[in-house]
């Protein structure tokens, strides 16, 4: 993975990463946006942008394996759902849903709320409005710690990795650091 790939600021809170064609399926880049390391992934044709920092202990999350969802009801019966992708932190193996950033290893069910505070998700991680020289500020809101994924029947864990909106404009990959309106 090329590190500190240079990005170009469009001045509207969006950053041009490079040509989409240079990031084919299975490839990932590590880019630097306003001092933040962000991993850019092409997961089976879908682009994902995730902050390169594991919310658990700060490991370089984007250097971990990208794995499909392994599920089982009982030993001997195991399925792999390749349509759901998780990034696995290389430090402690925590899994994060690449779409939502939600950690999934640790069931919120029946755990001690004193030790495991409710999960937090970030609307958009970084505010970039008019102070490029200032350190970006993060906005957090509590998420529903007991949310159950209706597809995978798994329970949300206590952490959320920061995912960023990424889209293709005119064949170029563009990552947004703007807060969504509303």
């Amino acid at each position, binding site marked *: 993975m090329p590190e500190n790939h240079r990005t170009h600021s469009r001045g509207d809170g969006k950053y041009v990463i490079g040509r989409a064609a240079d990031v084919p399926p299975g490839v990932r880049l590590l880019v630097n946006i306003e001092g933040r390391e962000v991993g850019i992934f092409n997961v089976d044709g879908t682009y994902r942008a995730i902050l390169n920092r594991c919310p658990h202990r700060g490991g370089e999350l984007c250097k971990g394996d990208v794995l499909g969802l*392994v599920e089982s009801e*009982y030993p001997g019966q*195991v399925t792999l759902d390749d349509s759901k992708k998780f990034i696995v932190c290389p430090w402690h*193996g925590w*899994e994060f849903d690449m779409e939502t950033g939600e950690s999934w*290893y640790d069931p919120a069910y029946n755990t001690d709320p004193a030790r495991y505070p409710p999960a937090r998700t970030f609307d958009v991680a970084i505010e970039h409005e008019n102070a490029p020289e200032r350190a970006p500020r993060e906005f957090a809101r509590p998420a529903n710690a007991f949310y159950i994924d209706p597809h995978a029947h798994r329970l949300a864990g206590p952490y959320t990795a920061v995912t960023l909106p990424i889209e293709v404009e005119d064949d170029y990959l563009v990552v947004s650091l703007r807060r969504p309106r509303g």
Partner: protein
Amino acid sequence: MSLPLTAEHRRKVWDGSIVDVDVNIEVPGIEALFPYLEGVWIQHIREQQWPGPSTQYFYPSNMPSSVRDEWRTPDGQVAASSVGLVREHILDRLDVDYAILNCHFPVDGGPPDFSVALARAANDWLLNEWLSADSRLRASLILPGPNDPAAMAAEIDRAGPRPGFVQAFLPARSGKLYGKRLYWPVFEALERNDLVGGIHIGGGNDGLPPTSSGWPSWYVEEYVAEVQVFESQLISLLGEGTFQKFPRLRLAFLGSGFTWVPGWMWNLDRNWKGIRREVPWLKRRPFEVVRDHVRFCTAPMDGGSIAEELALTIKWLGSDDLLMYGTEYPRDHGDSLDLLIGSLIEDMRAKVMSENARDWYRLGSRGR
């Protein structure tokens, strides 16, 4: 050495109900089983002048830990080998509502048909000479094997439905870890018969050492090292998905102690977070699965002597339901009833001394 367990002492320390989940009894001699053995095996035993399976190796009779002073017999009778002794020492003296008999009769080696015949005979002997003699007694089935799961399951199906059997004795030292799939027929049979699997000190007749690195030199090493077999069995059962395969399975760890449980489970819980994908059937924290499927006998208490410290360990179990009181008659592990009661918060006392066992073994219900 411990203070004698007297009737007065028991009432002074704990005035409530007691269920004793680990009363170890002995076959007094192989001749005791002759009424229950086929002729071919009696001839075999006589011809070979074979004294029968022995627990001497686990419990050398003169070791203080093997038999408490007040439970030794003056006339040289094998300790814990008759209903009269158990009645006097446990049922009456301690005013026990139920006592679960565990006969550590090591038939897990030798010729396979002989192992089956001995297990059947021992279970019939338990039924006729113990369970029929006192309504407070319940018992664990003795199983052949344990390297013959089909024979184990067959004996569970044969003798398990008989009144008084609430558990099957699974020797802790088995040829393979109990999580291995070759034991699935055994757990299937336990579920089918609504019996508890009691993983108890025992096994090793096939020469299995108590440690994975072979035989220690001295008895004290073996005595203390024995716990690692239980630790490995628990991890195996969890990792292999036994409780997901058999969601109604209930196990009891007997003679394993429990002070090791929180540390092992913390370690497994922590590592499971990172390698959960390897064992995807394990969807919940392993310690939570343990709380649903496993109970632990209070004996031995591993030498703890300060109630506050033991209380902390018990708190770390994270549940009031996991411990079941057991004297581990006739052994002397230095366990003290005062210490146990002193280390339990008030709300837990009735549970540990009686209710948890009643619940786990379904005592007093459906003819049990």
